[in-house]
């Protein structure tokens, strides 16, 4: 086919990753991860509806080392997606497109996600009497 000779735009791996583009794909990755994470939420709610034994089983699973690591990752993904989603809503309103603003808001999102994740976990451990 003649169209095979048409010039292609460069593939994604040609471009040097930039802070803003990394944050952009991270929004998508965290979104997919959170969608998978809903499986755990549904399992947890169903366990609670099934009765005390099932709930204790679910709490044990979520409270295990692996469960806590997953939950830690998901909590960061949640805060990141939440804050970056708010950043997207500002863009949807036509605000914050200047390069400098986009970088500042990007750093605010990353810093906020780390901060909120740490606060949530410190609070959770203090509620459990661990801190």
């Amino acid at each position, binding site marked *: 086919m003649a169209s095979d000779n048409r010039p292609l735009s460069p593939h994604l791996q040609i471009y040097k990753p930039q802070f803003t583009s990394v944050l952009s794909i991270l929004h998508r990755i965290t979104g*997919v991860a959170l969608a998978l994470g809903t499986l755990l939420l549904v399992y947890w709610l169903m366990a609670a509806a099934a009765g005390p034994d099932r709930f204790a089983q679910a709490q044990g699973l979520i409270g295990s080392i692996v469960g806590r690591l997953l939950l830690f990752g998901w909590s960061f993904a949640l805060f990141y997606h*939440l804050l970056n989603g708010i950043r997207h809503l500002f863009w949807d309103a036509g605000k914050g497109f200047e390069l400098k603003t986009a970088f500042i808001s990007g750093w605010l999102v990353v810093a906020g996600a780390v901060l909120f994740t740490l606060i949530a976990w410190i609070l959770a451990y203090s509620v459990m009497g661990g801190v």
Partner: protein
Amino acid sequence: MADKGGLRSPLARASGLGPAKNGVGHWWAQRVTAVALVPLVIWFVASIVLLSNCSYERFTAWIGSPLPAVLTILLIVATFHHAQLGLQVVIEDYVHREGTKLAGIVLVKLAAFALGTAAVFSVLKIAFGG
């Protein structure tokens, strides 16, 4: 837009749906659910953190009381609607075989309905003391 000499038919222009065939409905629903999820997620995470490792009785008493039950159900509905809209776009962007793409999207939509229903039912069962 002054699209008088465009290639699109008058009907296509009037319906305003564009090549994706669903116009701004998808985009708009994604934003509306996003806005709803901001307060709901913050409320839910804060509540769950404060209920860390609590007893079965305390958790079911909390989630079964009217306000938390209603807010949790709203959270579930908004979450699964938002998630299936987002996953649909991800599939449309990366899966290019028409059959696989369609199957993926159908699977995502059905799974969202099933999981959402299971979660809402669980909350109602706890709330009505099942």
